């Protein structure tokens, strides 16, 4: 019995390197799952801080359906986010109206028409534009767009849906362009070659072959842009005018969900109802962007499977 185990032991080649290898494997595995931990952690901590509000003062119908966000009202504070949702939605909607056609157009030009150096330079330029920080965009809205809108449209104030929508559109467009261009690039070249062999012109190839094949990827790009717009904070804080309002026109000032948190969190006492209500908005934002990102991922995965 002992001789047998001795024999086995001599076959055991687990040296120092083997143990290092195992240890590293565990370390990188832990790091790998840290992304999951963080996402769960974000949800857990934001929910934890907002939980008190959810338990006592929270009424789902008031929260979602009341346009009155008056957390500092002394007699009867109300916590309705309808107007804030309307603000975020109107700004994001206008931004997409501005950004979607132009970024898809730019993606088609860069991916399908431009070639060689021109394409390379355009891609670099788009990448640099995507890097401009959001607080700078907010500053641009405040100092450049604001007087421009006042002068062009003859309105008293230029901080409104239009301003924030354009700013957000310019901001989201480069990111959407590069994702959309990736989606076009993912269409195999043999599709284009087959269409060209049948005598199709470049535009016919794009319109009839490439765009239908890249449809899901392009939709994914748009959805990611929407997610971006929904979650943008500094730019909308500075450019919307920050007035609680359900907008009737693009010249009305509004206030966004994200901007409300950014503007009010500093003034609230930790643990107060107002503070907890802001965290509840955070939960709401987290869930919405989670759903948008998940949908975008499912759509993009859909094409890879085919």
């Amino acid at each position, binding site marked *: 019995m002992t001789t047998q185990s001795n024999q086995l032991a001599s076959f055991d080649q687990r040296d120092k390197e083997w143990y290092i290898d195992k240890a590293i494997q565990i370390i990188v595995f832990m790091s790998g799952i840290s992304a999951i931990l963080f*996402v769960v952690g974000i949800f857990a901590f934001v929910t934890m801080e907002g939980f008190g509000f959810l338990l006592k003062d929270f009424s789902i119908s008031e929260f979602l359906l009341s346009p009155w966000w008056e957390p500092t009202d002394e007699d009867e504070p109300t916590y309705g986010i309808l107007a804030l949702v309307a603000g975020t939605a109107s700004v994001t909607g206008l931004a997409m109206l501005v950004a979607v056609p132009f970024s898809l157009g730019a993606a088609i030009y860069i991916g399908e028409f431009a070639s060689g150096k021109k394409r390379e330079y355009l891609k670099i330029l788009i990448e640099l534009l995507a890097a401009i*920080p*959001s607080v700078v965009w907010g500053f641009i809205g405040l100092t*450049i767009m604001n007087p421009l809108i006042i002068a062009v449209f003859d309105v008293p104030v230029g901080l409104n849906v239009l301003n924030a929508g354009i700013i957000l559109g310019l901001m989201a467009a480069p990111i959407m362009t590069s994702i959309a261009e990736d989606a076009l690039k993912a269409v195999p070249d043999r599709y284009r070659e087959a269409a060209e062999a049948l005598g199709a012109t470049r535009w016919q190839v794009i319109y009839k072959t490439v765009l239908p094949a890249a449809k899901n990827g392009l939709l994914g790009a748009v959805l990611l842009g929407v997610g971006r717009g929904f979650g943008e904070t500094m730019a909308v804080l500075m450019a919307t005018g920050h007035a609680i309002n359900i907008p009737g026109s693009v010249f009305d000032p509004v206030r966004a969900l994200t901007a409300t948190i950014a503007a009010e969190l500093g003034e609230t006492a930790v643990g107060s109802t107002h503070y907890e209500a802001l965290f509840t908005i955070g939960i709401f934002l987290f869930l919405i962007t989670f759903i948008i990102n998940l949908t975008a991922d499912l759509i993009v995965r859909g094409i890879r499977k085919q």
Partner: protein
Amino acid sequence: MNSEMFIESDLNRTNKRTQALYRTLFIIMTLLLILPVVIILGTLVYKGGGIISIDFLFTDPINGMTEGGIFPALVGTLWLVSVALLISVPLGVAAAIYLSEYAADNWFTRIINLAIINLAGVPSIVHALFGVGAFVIFFGFGTSILAASLTLAIMTLPVVIVSTRESLQSVPYAFREACWNMGATRWQTIRRVVLPNAVSGILTGIILEVSRTAGETAPIMFTGAAFFLPYLPQGVFDQTMALSLHLFVVATQVPNVPDALPYGVALVLIGLVLLMNSISIAFRMHLRGKKKW
């Protein structure tokens, strides 16, 4: 042989014309996307360029931030970015090594990838709330560089993971097989063969992350950055000023700021970010030229 064969038909001509029309249309759309931003940046340079000087970069703000320079904000941004990198780079590179070298193609890896996508998509203000709930209050770091940098690190983690994973995967699989055949363990292969071949690509991603981290404002507002501090931070438990927040403050919160000042701050911030991105891009192109496989 009749020469008619080689003469353009009406159909050819129409096709060509449509082709040219669409091409022009898409060129115009691309230009409309780029030109406004270029004009805006030009305006910023025009209005803020004059104020930028060595003094502006290296003196403290005075008179309620209406005069003087931005030195503490620059130093603060440096602190925040450095501490954030110290956290996110090891974690992100290790996670990328797991995803590229160890993970099987199964549902579990898919969940990790989904988590990475979501981490990148969570609004920055929600990251800020997380930072307040977790680091400032729960772990008791208070509003400090540590809390702000942790928040920034988690927010920008996907940038490191995605770019590192890409450069690891661009190392040909045959390199690994050759190494395993010599009897090397998985880690020996990674350390001696895969990482040295991917290190420049990883660096490119890290530079990109510096740019992202330096520009963020919302995540640091409530976790460690202060509107104004009369002293420089001495350690990670101090609060600090930051360039991005300083721009927000002088643009919206401080009365009687001379016009040029916020433009100057914006210009320095953009300059810093674009410089980092340009270095990263130049590095990447240099690498592509050098690659032997």
